[in-house]
């Protein structure tokens, strides 16, 4: 990775790097180490879950029936919107339209926050119905996967904060850092897409 | 004018703390004739229930609790002397600081187990025995930080290559010797009788004498080093 890292100088100009045909790593190459490593860790969680599930399929299905599929879909859509707006934030910042970029970053935060609220409400509903972390194996996995994802999302707000901080002042505006933060945010999004399929849809 | 940095005050707390430790140990009935690990649960419970022993256990351990961390100022002074050595990095002084944070905690933990055992002597004898075991094993076997601080100090002294080193080489040799002498105590779990047992020659007498001697010797050489440093500083300013 060091060769990748040293190939791209850290402070890149905001524009002029997207010449046609020139391939570039979005954001710090270093961030991709986090993305790939953390994704691998999640793959092990998912795999363990799927395997445990096949060992007692009826228990998992019965408990799964208590989840609200529509809420899951809503969550997914909300995160997709936030991903979309952070992608627009990167593009507009690259073009130099920092006002639009900033608005898109705030929009991302808003939808991220919406996801958090909806997740907490969903947890509260489940707990009120008597399904907690220790109820059964399905709910253990449900709370574990959603909570660890929730934590990643909270960390995502730190990254979004960095992006906003960069975009705000003309003195900073490191396009690379904005891209780095966006890369992290998309990672949360695609991990959720998998969690959604595994917890809500699969049988 | 000599700056009032308080180093000498910290140094002179050492004999005071040493004296308090010694009197706490003499007061604790389990040390004068160190308790044997071969005692049965009933004997251990009877030891704690004995109205002669109980107040002495409690009061000695309360005193020990107050002063268990009393060695830390001395270690801080050693850190400052290591900083004066001709090293390229602060690694050795950092390491002694880490030992200072870890070592006294061991004494504190042992102290807590003793006090817990003495808190309800009417407890089931098996439980009293367990707390007593925990206290003695923690106290005797956990020599890691003491060994580390001696070895690190020795290394620091050997690598202090300047005209007038802060400590003489024999201080390093002495520290290595202390480290070696502390090693057998780590094995207290292996024997209920004999020199390795926690009341034995190696694990109790040799070990604790070595620790006491280390405090005395290091106190003296530390005092000399600080005095010399202050004389130097004074000569430089006048």
């Amino acid at each position: 990775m060091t060769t990748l890292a040293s190939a791209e100088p850290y402070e890149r100009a905001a524009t002029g790097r997207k010449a046609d045909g020139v391939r570039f790593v979005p954001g710090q190459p270093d961030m991709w180490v986090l993305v790939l490593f953390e994704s691998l860790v999640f793959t092990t969680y998912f795999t363990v879950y799927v395997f445990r599930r096949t060992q007692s399929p009826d228990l998992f299905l019965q408990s799964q029936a208590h989840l609200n599929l529509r809420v899951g879909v809503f969550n997914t859509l909300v995160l997709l919107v936030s991903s979309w707006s952070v992608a627009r934030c990167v593009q507009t910042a690259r073009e130099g339209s920092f006002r639009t970029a900033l608005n898109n970053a705030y929009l991302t935060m808003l939808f991220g926050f919406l996801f958090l609220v909806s997740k907490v409400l969903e947890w509260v509903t489940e707990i009120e119905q008597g399904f907690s972390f220790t109820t059964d194996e399905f709910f253990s996995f449900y709370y574990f996967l959603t909570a660890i994802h929730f934590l990643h999302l909270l960390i995502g707000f730190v990254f979004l904060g960095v992006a906003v901080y960069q975009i705000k002042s003309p003195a900073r505006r490191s396009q690379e850092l904005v891209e780095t933060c966006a890369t992290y945010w998309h990672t949360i999004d695609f991990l959720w897409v998998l969690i959604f399929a595994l917890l809500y849809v699969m049988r | 004018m000599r700056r009032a940095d308080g180093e000498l005050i910290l140094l002179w707390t050492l004999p005071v703390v040493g004296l308090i430790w010694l009197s706490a140990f003499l007061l604790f009935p389990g040390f004068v004739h160190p308790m044997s690990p071969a005692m049965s649960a009933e004997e251990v419970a009877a030891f704690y229930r004995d109205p002669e022993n109980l107040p002495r256990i409690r009061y000695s351990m309360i005193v020990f609790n107050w002063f268990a961390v009393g060695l830390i100022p001395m270690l801080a002074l050693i850190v400052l002397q290591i900083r004066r050595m001709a090293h390229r990095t602060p690694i050795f002084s950092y390491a002694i600081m880490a030992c200072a944070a870890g070592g006294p905690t061991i004494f504190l933990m042992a102290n807590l187990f003793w006090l817990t055992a003495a808190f309800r002597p009417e407890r089931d004898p098996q439980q009293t025995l367990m707390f007593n075991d925990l206290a003695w094993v923690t106290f005797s076997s956990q020599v890691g930080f003491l060994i580390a601080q001696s070895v690190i100090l020795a290394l620091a002294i050997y690598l202090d290559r300047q005209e007038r080193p802060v400590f003489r080489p024999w201080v390093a040799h002495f520290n290595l010797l202390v480290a070696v002498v502390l090693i057998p105590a780590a094995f207290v779990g292996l024997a209920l009788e004999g020199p390795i047992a926690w009341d034995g020659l190696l694990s109790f007498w040799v070990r604790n004498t070595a620790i006491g001697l280390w405090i005395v010797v290091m106190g003296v050489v530390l005092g000399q080093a600080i005095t010399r440093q202050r004389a130097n500083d004074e000569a430089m300013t006048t």
Partner: protein
Amino acid sequence: MSAATTGAAPEVPSGSLLRKIVWHWRYDEKRELWIGWWTLVVFYNLYGLLFFVIARTQPPPKPSLTAPEIVQWFHDRHYGLLYGYAIVSIVGGATAIMNATLAYTMRRMSVSRAFAYSYLVIYALATLPGMLIMGVACTVGAMRPDRNPALMSWLYDFAFLSFEGTMGVFLIGSLVWMVAVLLDRNRVFPKWFGYLNLCNALTEVVVAPAWIFKRGVFAWDGGIAWWTNMAVFVTYTTVFLTLLRKMILREDFGTGPLPELQSDHPPEPGTREAA
């Protein structure tokens, strides 16, 4: 830290390992760093040997064992526990010099010394729950095989739960290191190592269910709470040992950015393992 100039050091002698070590002891400017690095390498190997082979307390046994099974467990590894943890308590203090070396990496960065100090103190604490309490509990359990089974079961839980109790230490410690690496302008470590610290910190959150579950993947011996986390920790440790070695080779004892390693040159003195 007045520099002890060694003058013109003679060539690294070829031949026996002992002579090389003596040479480094006498002339190597970076000997303090190398002492720290070798302590780290030897210690982690020894740690693996002691915990996995001699004491056989890793991979951890089941938390769901009944009291008689726990008595049997202590009985089966009687000498392993007693000798293993005796050695652990002798070498346990080596963590001081290891953490001092790692704290030094933060001292070399362009960040406040507060990072190095925080790291040092946090990990000085970690040794207690991480190794020493576990050692005491296992020693006490093994030394009297006829102890009341209920108390043996308490000692067993105390040992393994205290081992889990390092969560916060590693969580905050890794985050401190992460922030230092990300802010650093001296390029002591690559930025991706900073992010890897975040991965390590997150595993300390994942281990938390081990306090609740007695069986399954979230228990202290489970597929997620133990195996995945151990895999991440081993990766993390291997990575920082490698990067630390590189950092020592690059060290110039200045305060500015560390120079890059000249890979086409013969290895510098100090790389006695490079050849």
